[in-house]
């Protein structure tokens, strides 16, 4: 599957998906005018790819400065997808970069609460 690299814009995220290396990253601010249009195709590609993975080591990094609620639906969806991928027999690590004691830290922890197979790690920027 071809890598996906999308530069960050004022209202949408930088996307860096390396399918061969199984390293994925989303960073920046997310409040695009059309949220499903931005995330939909990305999630489809990830679902397609993860369905083929077994015994793989997957690292998904989030460095989100801000995201609106429609974006949050997709971020939580990604957490659920990563959890299912881990349950299917893969080593999945979710990295959440944020400022310590920031709202983003709380947001990441809230989303990670239900993870049992995938691991969650906070990375502090400050």
């Amino acid at each position: 599957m071809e890598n996906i690299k999308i530069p960050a814009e004022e209202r949408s995220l930088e996307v860096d998906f390396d399918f061969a290396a199984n390293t994925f990253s989303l960073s920046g601010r997310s409040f695009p005018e059309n949220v499903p249009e931005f995330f939909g195709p990305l999630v489809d590609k990830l679902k397609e790819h993860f369905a083929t993975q077994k015994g793989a080591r997957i690292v998904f990094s989030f460095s989100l400065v801000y995201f609106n609620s429609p974006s949050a639906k997709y971020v939580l969806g990604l957490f659920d997808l990563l959890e299912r991928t881990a349950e299917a027999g893969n080593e999945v690590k979710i990295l959440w970069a944020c400022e310590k004691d920031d709202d983003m830290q709380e947001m990441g922890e809230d989303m990670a609460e239900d993870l049992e197979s995938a691991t969650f790690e906070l990375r502090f920027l400050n």
Partner: protein
Amino acid sequence: MGLEEQVLASEMFDLRDTLGQQGITFCYSGYMTEGILLGIGNAIKTQMQLGDADAKVTKGVFAVFVEQVQNVIRYSAEKIGNEDSSELRYGILTVGSKDDVPFVACGNMIETKDAERLRDSLTHIKGLDRDGLKALWKETLRGETPEGSKGAGVGFIDIARNARHGIDFDFRKVDDAYVFFTLKALL
């Protein structure tokens, strides 16, 4: 100064004074567009940073501001244009700080038929504590998008989660068809 100029100066000054007394630092009454959202949003961020505001509070104010303006853009019943071409929706926005509590408030027309659903939803949300809000938030994000929602259905929950000093809302009947809805978030 002629009489007309004196009246104009006094009208504007009085408006400024009234806004000042309520602690309002930004006030916009008009058609809300994505451009307005970005422009005012940046101005609010800059203003709060220059005023030495707590970074966390600034982020909270910005987040609530975006949600509220997007609510007007999506749901205000007062609009010109049509869905096929371009559409402009009308609302009122105030941002400010009173007694050291920042606030963001928005007002817009809604159809009477939507008022009860909104009131029930907000009453329920207002009654939840932090954990209750968090649970409702995740439940809603994971579920089907609720009736009438153009986003993810969690806009009000998000606003409530950010509004450390609570939310207030009001529904004022305008006529048989419309109600003026106001939501104020205190951070």
